[in-house]
């Protein structure tokens, strides 16, 4: 009985180890990716650094261009304008009359405000 048992005992099959995969492909992908990342980083740095540098240069050129001075139109500020009595030139009288003109327009507005204040109506609260 025991002998039979020994005879019929199965010999376990040899474990078939899978063929060792080569790391070559994987390493190749990693290497290519790393190179690409480095290229992208270098490219970005280049664009940021030299791009800004070029921009600065451009701006400087614009600013360095000779510009024609645009004189602002001198409009006397109402209320604060002071007539210089000694200056009887055309230009001075023009400025004086402009200031008066503006103040007269503002006076019209003030008088409208006076009328509105007299005619003020409060919200119906009854």
């Amino acid at each position, binding site marked *: 009985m025991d002998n039979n048992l020994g005879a019929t005992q199965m010999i376990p099959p040899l474990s078939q180890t899978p063929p060792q995969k080569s790391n070559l492909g994987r390493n190749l992908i990693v290497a290519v990716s790393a190179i690409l990342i480095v290229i992208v980083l270098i490219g970005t740095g280049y664009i940021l650094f030299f791009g800004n540098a070029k921009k600065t240069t451009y701006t400087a050129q614009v600013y360095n261009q000779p510009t024609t001075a645009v004189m602002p139109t001198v409009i006397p500020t*109402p*209320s604060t*304008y002071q*007539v*210089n*009595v*000694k*200056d*009887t*030139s*055309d230009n*001075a*009288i*023009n400025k*004086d*009359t402009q*200031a*008066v*003109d503006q*103040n*007269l*327009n*503002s*006076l*019209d507005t*003030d*008088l409208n*405000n*006076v*009328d*509105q*204040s*007299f005619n*003020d109506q*409060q*919200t*119906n*609260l*009854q």
Partner: protein
Amino acid sequence: MKKTILMVILGLALSTSSAYAVGSLIQTRDAAVTQRENHIASREAKISQVQANISEDLRQRAEKEITRRVTFLNELITKLNTIKKISSAEKTDLQAQIQAQIDGLNALRTKINADTDNVTLKTDVKSIIDNYYIFLFFRVKVSLLIAGDRSSTVVSSLNGIYTKLQTRVNQVQTSGGDLIVLNSLLSDMNAKITDATTQITVTQTELTPLTAQGYPGNKTTLTDARSKIKNVNDELKTAYKDAMQIRTDLGGEKIKNPEASGSGDQKFEKPRPLSTP
């Protein structure tokens, strides 16, 4: 015996039916009472809702009016700072009075928003109506002071222009030019400026002592001040037109201007059209 049994049965039947009838009546009455109570409760709920709506509406209108007044009063404080022709003491006093009004209105707004019963709410809202005259007085007075101040500025500028034009006309006289029209215009310009100055002074004098407590009794004084400022405006416009006419008339004359830089001889340029009506 039979008769007795019959009577008992009849009595039982009668009492049962009576009890049933009474029960039905009570049930009906209870239902009616419940219905009536529900009706009353529903009506009270509707009344409460209507009252709540009225209160909310009143509260909103009060809020609107308070906001309107506070906005105006704040503007008045800002505008008061621009007035140059009144003393700083008067300015400070007016600003303090207006600020007190603003504070009062803000406190009232808080109270109105917190009011829970209609009676208090209506009383508080009524106080807005009662104090309206104070707001109105300040609005009118400060508006008049601003207009008066502006008029003074115009007078000051026109006085300067008058002096300059007079100088130029005198130079024409030296050159032997015709001065009848020019002098007439100068004279009219001077008269208008002088009268405007007098009216402005009178206006400012009558405005200064007016207080909110005196309103509406002092309304006639305020109305008078308004008509004076309007007269002043008309006179200043006439003086301005005179000045522009003098400039135009001087346009053909070559005159000496010792103050002007460059060559001594000069000629008026064509003046720009008058934009003021």
